């Protein structure tokens, strides 16, 4: 029932028409109107309904009795009920707001945890694969070193191996390789030489090598020069046909010019009759790895051609790969390899 119709009705019946509306009832009507427009309709409509009933009761009382204490009390109570409904609604809104904020925070926490856990996972993965890579690199290096070591040991078993400032020198007695005065390899020598070839391929695949033939002082210098040259070539050919790269190995005869023993005794002469294979150290590494200057080319026979493929730089293992590293000879030998 609207406000005007209630008054109209009361006036027609002659009840309370003469009375002015008590302020409590005015306040109650205002309070209810305000509550109705607010959030109570949404959050606590039952309380709003209670307030409405109270207002209607007050209106009825005013209509029946006019301005009595009962009308005023009922209007007073109706006003409070409307205000209570309104206040509760606002409280509910605040609580819902707080709950929403808490939910948002929780969602943010969850998202952050997800994000961090993903980052952690991918970091762990990256770390693991890095470690694996390092491990396999280490294993490769170890393997290569082991092979090189094995080769050195093998070589030491079959031939005399020494270190000089020229590099590693493998000395093969002439009597084992050739018949007297001949430059054709003995059949028995071939087995030994193939072992030497194998050891060299395994241990020093990238190194430059020089085969040098030597004789004793018996016979003319010319004759000895020619014989030593032929013998050196024979050994070289054999090694090349057994895996040594042709552009890595040269041969020359030195005749009787480099005696290592006294030619006046048979033992001395026997020692002088030899073939030496000099394995030059990689560029940048002196004998025993001490020097910092590049490998010295003291005797440069015309047969040696400068190769674009340089030996592996200092610090890198003698692996099976042949690398083009133009930086190696021109820079100082102490430069670190690019990782």
């Amino acid at each position, binding site marked *: 029932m609207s406000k005007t119709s209630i008054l109209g009705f009361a006036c027609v019946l002659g009840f309370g028409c003469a009375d002015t509306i008590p302020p409590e009832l005015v306040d109650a009507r205002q309070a209810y109107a305000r509550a109705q427009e607010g959030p109570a309709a949404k959050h606590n409509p039952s309380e709003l309904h209670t307030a409405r009933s109270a207002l209607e009761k007050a209106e009825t009382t005013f209509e029946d009795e006019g301005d009595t204490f009962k009308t005023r009390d009922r209007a007073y109570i109706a006003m*409070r009920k409307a205000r209570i409904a309104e206040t509760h609604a606002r409280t509910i809104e605040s*609580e819902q707001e707080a709950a929403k904020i808490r939910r948002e925070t929780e969602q943010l926490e969850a998202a952050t945890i997800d994000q961090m856990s993903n980052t952690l996972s991918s970091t762990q993965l990256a770390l693991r694969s890095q470690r694996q890579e390092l491990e396999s690199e280490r294993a490769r290096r170890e393997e290569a070193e082991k092979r090189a070591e094995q080769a050195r040991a093998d070589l030491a078993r079959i031939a005399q191996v020494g270190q000089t400032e020229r590099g590693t020198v493998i000395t093969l007695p002439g009597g084992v390789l050739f018949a007297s005065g001949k430059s054709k390899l003995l059949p028995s020598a071939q087995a030994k030489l193939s072992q030497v070839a194998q050891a060299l391929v395994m241990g020093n695949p990238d190194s430059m090598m020089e085969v040098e033939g030597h004789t004793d002082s018996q016979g003319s210098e010319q004759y000895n020069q020619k014989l030593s040259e032929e013998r050196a070539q024979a050994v070289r050919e054999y090694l090349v046909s057994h895996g040594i790269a042709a552009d890595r190995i040269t041969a020359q005869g030195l005749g009787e010019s480099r005696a290592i023993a006294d030619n006046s005794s048979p033992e001395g002469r026997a020692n002088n009759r030899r073939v030496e294979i000099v394995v030059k150290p990689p560029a940048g590494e002196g004998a025993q790895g001490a020097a910092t200057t590049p490998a010295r080319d003291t005797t440069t026979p015309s047969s040696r051609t400068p190769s674009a493929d340089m030996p592996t730089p200092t610090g890198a293992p003698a692996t099976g790969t042949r690398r083009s590293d133009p930086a190696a000879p021109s820079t100082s030998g102490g430069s670190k390899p690019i990782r």
Partner: protein
Amino acid sequence: MKTHLFCGLTSAALISACASYPRPEENLANSMAAARGASEAGAAEVPEAQLQLKLAQEEIEAAKKLIEDEEYERADYMTLRAYYDAELALALAREEAAKRGVEHTARAAEARKSQLSQATNQD
């Protein structure tokens, strides 16, 4: 003298014709309990709630006096006024608490948010 028994059996519509009215002990007790509840909820600290609570307490005293004077019907209505004033005081006190709660939650959420963003930025 007022006859209580007769009034207890009549319907509300005839109450104006009735000479007696029951002593509003229960309603008085309810209104006092409501006032206590509002007080304990901290109504005294919230200005508007404090006003309502004061009204309730005055009305309770007025109701007691009316009971002494055997004005039971008036006393009854007075207790009801007191009860709803106290209830409003309580509602206002709770509203204030909820408002402060939101502010606190919002502040805590902001702090946590910046904490979390710092943590992720460190990665």
